[in-house]
């Protein structure tokens, strides 16, 4: 059997594929390659650039058939992706930080017009002060933008999430743009073993776009996108958008089943629970720091402290039901954020978790831990301190609701 096109020359393909060492950007590029896009339009920005370079290399090697355009700015990148997507094609783009803010009008236009485009956010702090370091602040600037947002912990999850993103985005019940988000450097430039699935397996999971029933531009049924709307019709658009977001959230379990059937391994749900069931208290986070928190949970367990972790994988729509279920019966919750809300001096994920926790009876303390900004490490000692503080809060010790890790 000949090696599938996505594998490097000489590599052994197919079932039981040996994992390859890929960094997050390359893993994303393999994911995109397997999804057979029609267009890749992007503008280089640190730390996303190597993702594009890998895609351009695929193209030069003849593995990727998509058209590639290095446009003159991020605004044009997403706009070009919108153009091909409303025409019925499959588009991909990727950005970070200031690039994301520079495409803000196209970003909101994409969700409001229900355009199923997929975009990576290689997460980075938001200027100013000027920096190219890791953070999750860029994602937080668009969390209310109406996109589905998946946040990854590992390079494997990045590749898998690209496949899931297109499956979700293009579902007739969803028809929404999807972000696949991973932290700059901690994941974009971190190499891990990644299993690259066979093209045939991916094709079983994600139909090539030509086989989908999608609204497309054509001469038989001319359509206009982005029409001017006022009043009640506008409200109806918003109502339906929210309903589609909810359907996207509810669909992840079914998609996980399809993923297992096609690829022989799970994708997982909206929240990953780690030793959470019998935990006395719960830590909550998103992204790469979850790996360190799992180690912290294990260490505390050895000491007889029943720690648990909930890792949010789908940030938008917020998996409120799952989070509530995991928090129920716990004595305290600590939320670790790599971002800050200037309006309330709390982490963004904390604000969501705190809102969900209002439904708990009795009320429990929820603590916001802000750390890891601008590429500083969320070290094991810092996270262990956060977990112990949360544990103590659950046992009645008073303290501030927000703690800046390493600063206070």
């Amino acid at each position, binding site marked *: 059997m000949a090696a599938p096109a996505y594998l490097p020359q000489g590599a052994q393909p197919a079932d039981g594929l040996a994992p390859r060492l890929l960094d997050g950007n390359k893993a994303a590029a393999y994911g995109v390659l397997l999804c057979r896009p029609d267009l890749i339009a992007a503008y*280089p*920005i640190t730390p996303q*650039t190597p993702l*594009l*370079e890998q895609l351009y290399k695929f193209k030069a090697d003849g593995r990727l058939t998509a058209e590639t355009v*290095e446009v*003159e700015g991020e605004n044009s990148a997403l706009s070009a992706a919108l153009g091909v997507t409303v025409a019925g094609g499959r588009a991909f783009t990727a950005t970070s930080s200031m690039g994301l803010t520079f495409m803000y009008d196209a970003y909101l236009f994409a969700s409001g017009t229900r355009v199923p485009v997929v975009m990576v956010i290689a997460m980075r702090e938001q200027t100013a002060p*000027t920096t190219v370091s890791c953070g999750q602040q860029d994602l937080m600037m668009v969390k209310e933008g109406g996109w589905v947002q998946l946040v990854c912990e590992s390079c494997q999850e990045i590749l898998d999430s690209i496949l899931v993103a297109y499956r979700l985005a293009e579902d007739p019940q969803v028809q929404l743009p999807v972000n696949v988000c991973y932290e700059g450097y901690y994941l974009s430039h971190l190499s891990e073993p990644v299993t690259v699935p066979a093209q045939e397996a991916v094709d079983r999971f994600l139909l090539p776009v030509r086989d989908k029933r999608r609204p497309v531009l054509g001469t038989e049924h001319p359509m206009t996108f982005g029409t001017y709307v006022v009043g009640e019709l506008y409200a109806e658009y918003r109502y339906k958008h929210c309903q589609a977001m909810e359907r996207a959230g509810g669909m992840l379990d079914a998609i996980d089943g399809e993923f297992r059937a096609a690829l022989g391994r799970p994708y997982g749900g909206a929240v990953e629970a780690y030793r959470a069931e019998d935990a006395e208290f719960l830590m909550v986070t998103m992204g790469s720091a979850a790996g360190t928190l799992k180690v912290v949970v294990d260490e505390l367990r050895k000491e007889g402290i029943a720690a648990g972790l909930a890792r949010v994988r789908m940030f938008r729509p917020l998996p409120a039901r799952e989070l509530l279920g995991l928090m129920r019966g716990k004595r305290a919750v600590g939320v670790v954020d790599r971002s800050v809300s200037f309006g309330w001096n709390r982490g963004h994920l904390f604000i969501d978790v705190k809102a969900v926790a209002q439904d708990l009876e009795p009320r429990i303390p929820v603590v916001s831990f802000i750390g890891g900004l601008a590429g500083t490490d969320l070290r094991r000692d810092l996270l262990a301190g956060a977990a112990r503080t949360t544990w103590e809060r659950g046992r009645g010790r008073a303290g501030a609701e927000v703690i800046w890790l390493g600063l206070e």
Partner: protein
Amino acid sequence: MAGTLTRKDFVSNQEVRWCPGCGDYAILAQVQKVLPEFGVAREKVVFISGIGCSSRFPYYMNTYGFHTIHGRAPAIATGLKVTRPDLEVWVVTGDGDGLSIGGNHLVHALRRNIGLKILLFNNRIYGLTKGQYSPTSEVGKVTKSTPMGSVDFPFNPIAVALGAHASFVCRAVDVEQKHLGEMLRRAHEHRGGAFIEIFQNCNIFNDGAFHELTDKPLKADYQLILEHGKPLIFGRNRDKGVRLNGHKPEIVTLANGASEKDLLVHDETDPALGFILANFAPPMPTPIGVFYVDSRPPFEAEMNRQLERAKEQRGVGDLRKLLYGGDTWTVS
């Protein structure tokens, strides 16, 4: 105390962090050399940049500085210059910052003739993101984003500036220090917006992009130095000239029957000639120097003149009177 300034006064205490051998060092050195000669006090000088290698420039100047948003330096500088026309505002940008993401702001700043001195470092590559093709990279350029060669037709920055009706358009080369200094001086003296394209070697990602203009054995045959009122002559023996055949330029050899009086004489006030020169392509030599100058008044002068005229005609005005006067009524 402007008269006593020296180069040292314009050198900041920051460690310069460009790659060793970068053309930016040469440009920085020349800017720091000539600025004190202009007699402008440091506190009246501002350097504004966007994002890119060139945009580190303000850190190294001991003047006011603002490292801003990708592509937006001309817009931010516009705000400053129109409200503080007394300041000497320099914009430092590159072919990515100025012609990709910031192309819009650049052409409008030039069109409006805002009195900015815009230095566009053109290295024909994205250096800060480690070597993708830029909007000035030539067709066929192999880079990390164009492994099969670029199919994207590039901008000609001088033609863009002329097309935007910039009132001062010139080109310099990073290592041609004396000439670069002269171009900076001309830009400083020009009343209005000045656009200076500076060919700048990125020795890491696009080394030798302008080697024909900088290698000593070659440059005399490839460089055409523009001087107002003088015939276009070049070549290591000063034996080659440019003449017009209709609207088409052609090279003539002076020894072969052609004389200086047949040659095209540079007139930097002629926009049509500026365009012809801007579009010189091989085998024509590459012009450096001032392509075009226009004496129309700068935007900020016109804007402030309009404000003064309005005050003369209608008085200074009273905000409270404006808010409470005229077309208002009481709902009962």
